[in-house]
């Protein structure tokens, strides 16, 4: 019996070794061609270039979601444009709404330039002092930043008695039920502040755990308004809610520009900003404590929605090559075409020094508004 088994085992072993050798060959094969094509300035120093190396993009969310998809869209083009054409892979490390991966990149990840983090970055979250945060944003090295569109707010057409013709009609609604994901999410915070600032009465129902579930709840009429990401708007809200004719976009929450103004985001030129709608309802620009808090949230979000970050202290030469690769990738027409096919639009590229500058400036925010938001989140 034992002998028979070991015979079988031996053949399995042979096959597995053969498979491994093949895998190994394909790896070293890449190394060889890259070495021939590129410079051969020695790979032992860890600098020179990325030939034969593997660049790992850590993503703090599950596969198939928005962040993961964006990272995977990027990886082929990073490989193409980073000197030495490294093999680029995406690793998912989900947990604590992305905080776990940020902590990992901050504390554990190697600094040889072969590990980077692709993440939606909130400047507000660290200020709110959520437990479990161990990173400091301004210590990271920014490889590149992308804006993927403003947060939007939607309402069911039947939320308003009679005709729903324009966003201003929401002021006639007397039974708004606002759905959310969790109290601390921007998708909850901004729509709540917006409705409170307008002085509208509403019921707040949070806990839907994902944008998919929120969309389901508005289909079943359990809620009749919600805040969503722009990518969700383009990829699913339009086709499942707006075109079938029961939901309309109310407004978007715009980015602040360099002059401190809030013009319509280039992503959504046809949809009014919250401030526009406010003015046409109230006849004056927004003001008051809810507005101050909303303005802070808007301001802190006006950096970049997704960033590629290198761990603090990353080897400067490697960092320079990563930045070069990123900068070339996001203007590559092939990448633009592929992203546009998947998302329906292309990102806005944000300059690195602007991001780094905003990281440092966070120290000067108005702490009174931060405290206000903290309280507001706990209250529900």
């Amino acid at each position, binding site marked *: *019996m*034992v002998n028979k*088994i*070991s015979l079988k*085992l*031996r053949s399995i*072993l042979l096959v*597995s070794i053969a498979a491994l050798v093949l*895998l*190994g060959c394909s*790896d070293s094969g890449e190394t060889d061609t890259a070495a021939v094509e590129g410079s051969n300035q020695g790979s032992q120093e860890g600098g020179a270039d990325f030939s034969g190396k593997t660049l*790992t993009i850590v993503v703090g969310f*599950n*596969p*198939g979601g928005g962040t993961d*998809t964006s990272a*995977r*869209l990027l990886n082929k083009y990073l490989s193409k444009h980073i000197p030495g054409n490294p093999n680029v892979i*995406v*690793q998912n*490390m989900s*947990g*604590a709404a992305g905080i*776990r991966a940020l902590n990992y990149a901050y504390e*554990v990840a190697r600094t040889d330039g072969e590990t980077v983090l692709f993440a939606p970055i909130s400047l507000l979250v660290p200020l709110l002092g959520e*437990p*479990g945060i161990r990173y400091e944003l301004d210590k990271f090295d920014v490889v590149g930043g992308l804006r993927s569109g403003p947060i939007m707010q939607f309402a069911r057409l039947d939320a308003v008695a009679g005709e729903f013709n324009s966003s201003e009609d929401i002021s006639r609604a007397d039974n708004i039920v606002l759905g*959310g*994901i*969790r*109290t601390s999410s921007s998708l909850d915070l901004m729509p709540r502040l917006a409705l409170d600032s307008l002085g509208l009465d509403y*019921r*707040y*129902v*949070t*806990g*839907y*755990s*994902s944008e*998919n*579930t929120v*969309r*389901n*709840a508005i*289909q*079943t009429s*359990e*809620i009749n308004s919600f805040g969503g990401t722009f990518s969700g708007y383009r*990829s*699913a809200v*339009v*086709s*499942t809610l707006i*075109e*079938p004719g029961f939901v309309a976009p109310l407004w978007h929450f715009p980015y602040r520009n360099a002059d401190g103004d809030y013009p319509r985001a280039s992503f959504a030129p046809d949809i009014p900003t919250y401030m526009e709608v406010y003015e046409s309802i109230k006849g004056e620009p927004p003001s008051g404590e809810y507005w101050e808090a909303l303005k802070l949230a808007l301001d802190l979000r006006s950096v970049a929605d997704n960033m590629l970050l290198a761990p603090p202290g990353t080897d400067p030469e490697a960092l320079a090559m990563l930045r070069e690769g990123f900068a070339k990738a996001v203007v590559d027409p092939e990448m633009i075409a*592929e992203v546009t096919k*998947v*998302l329906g639009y292309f990102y806005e590229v944000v300059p690195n020094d602007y991001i780094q500058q905003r990281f440092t400036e966070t120290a000067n925010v108005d702490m009174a508004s931060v405290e206000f938001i903290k309280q507001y989140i*706990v209250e*529900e």
Partner: protein
Amino acid sequence: MFSDLLTGLLLVLQWPTIGFLFLGVLFGIFLGIIPGLGVIIGMVVLLPFTFGMDPVSAFALLLGMYAVTSTSDTISSVMLGVPGTSASQATILDGYPLAQKGHAARALGAAFTTSAFGGVFGALVLALSLPLIRPVIQSFSSPEIFMLGVLGLTMVGSLSGGSLSKGLAVAALGLLMSTVGYSDSGAIPRYYFGVGYLIDGLPMIPVVLGLFALPELMELAIRNRSISRTDSAEVEGGGILDGVKDAARHWWLAVRCATIGTYIGMLPGLGASIVDWLAYGHAVQSAKDKSQFGKGDIRGVIAPEAANNATRGGSLIPTVAFGVPGSLGAAILLGALLIVGLKPGPEMLTTEITTTFSMVWSIAIANMLATMLLLLTARHVAKLAFLPGHMIVPAIIMFVFMGAWLGGGDIGDWVVCLTMGVVGFFMKRGAWPRPPLVLALVLGSIMENAYLLTGRVYDGFEWLQRPIVVVISLVIAVTLFVVIRGILRQKRDGANITQGEGVSGSPVFSLPLSILFLVIFSSATVLATDWPNSVKQFPVLLGICGAIFTFFAVVNDGFTFRKTLATEAGFRNAVTRASKDAVFGKASLFMGSLILMVLVMLIIGQKLALPLFIGFYLKFWGGYRLRTCLIYSLCAWAFMIGFYDRVMHLFWYPAWLESQLPALLPGWIPSWLFV
């Protein structure tokens, strides 16, 4: 409509689409067989390949995999008593006893046949009932989802063990465990005791593997007997064809269960998680002779297997047509839809209908392909049941530990797995059913959300008057009534209650667990008192319900314990006898060696520690020749490198050796081979 259906079929049959479908099927079979892998892992591996593929081929690849993991996961449910994926839990109840009787091939034959039937039936029924789908889905809001969860748990709690109070108490415990860490909406982490790992909650897969796999492995290792308790020569009527015939004989049951699977499976949130239990419950309730359920009734295999494959089709349409995925796997499919350039929405049922039908066909064809492949090989797979335990244990240990690691990549995953192994051992020995805990853990956060949302959306108890809520409540009441009547009858007739896991429990193991659970429920309630209302509501409710159920279990155990004391003449004798029955000493040694392996791993890393453990186990515990041990360990090592490292790209534990090794190795040997 008919021509669209045909065009869809032709799209799938094209080359290379059909080739991708075949690849997906092969990969799906592999994922289902290995405990700890499953649909989600499959999506992670396959998703990157779909970038740039044409939609039909991309979905042939994904759906080929997606459709069949719940066919091949039957193998580990039947052979090992370990759910291959959480969709195949109910299959264990009768599948494993069949394997122990030497009828593994028959169970597999029946399971594969009905799986194929369920999968094809689900896909086609769905295609024909497209107009019905929107109203069905839209009538399920938070209150209905919550009640559906309660129904699922009532089914498991009452069917998976001999004792109703124990079953329900375990379900409450599972729900309570799901409240560890942040709730989805709340701002305060619960029951994490300052441990960062727990802030995110208890992960599913390490719990399942620890709870089910470790106790079974212990048994195999300690007694070194094969899975089948009877010799292969003595078994009669246990062949694959007998299983196929069984499936044909019970075709009407399969039809009913596949229907349950299709329609329940499309409900967003938790439909897909509970169908196997609803189907099993239906099989038990509709059977005239219920006496063999839990001891190896083939109907207990047919029902859940027909249902769980049917859900795969069921969850597809809501995902593509309304952007409402019914499960995490379906949520990833939704992501894939965008990647290939399609958008969910009604157009998927109008202008893109041929693509949608090609997906339906992919599922149907994948199911048939998988069943053919598995039926052809089932004869060999079933032989594993007659192998000595020592040859099986090491490989499964590797799969269990790597599977536990896959989800989170944290050493906490291994600690949870080992802890649940100990709990599972006591539960098994003490006749506490384990399946309710797992289902409750799956449903926990969905049910809590639905419960809280219901409270926020509806005033007072008006939600209880919603028609579907009333219907589900009635089904729950009937289920409980049937079960309680059954228990009372058995008591009156003096027969032993021998359904499911409640077969050979000893109060010596059960009573300490009862008391432990009672302590957990009451302290959980006390700890929660100061939390904000939305954060504490659910745990407090569970703490109270759990304590009541456990109280009944304690009283019951107390009586049995007194009886045991009387027959065994004294406390000490009773304890000695029970621990001897459970081979407590050897079990501790087994657990001890696993803990030692984990400690060694902290220094040398997983890629070396697991193969080393395997070698040592075979040599010193199994007494095999050095050559066998070496070859086995090398195979394990090769699998870890080849699959988990090169294909999965997972995060390995940063062991001490990792920082040292690169300096020691010559440049031409890559260090990923070892750490």
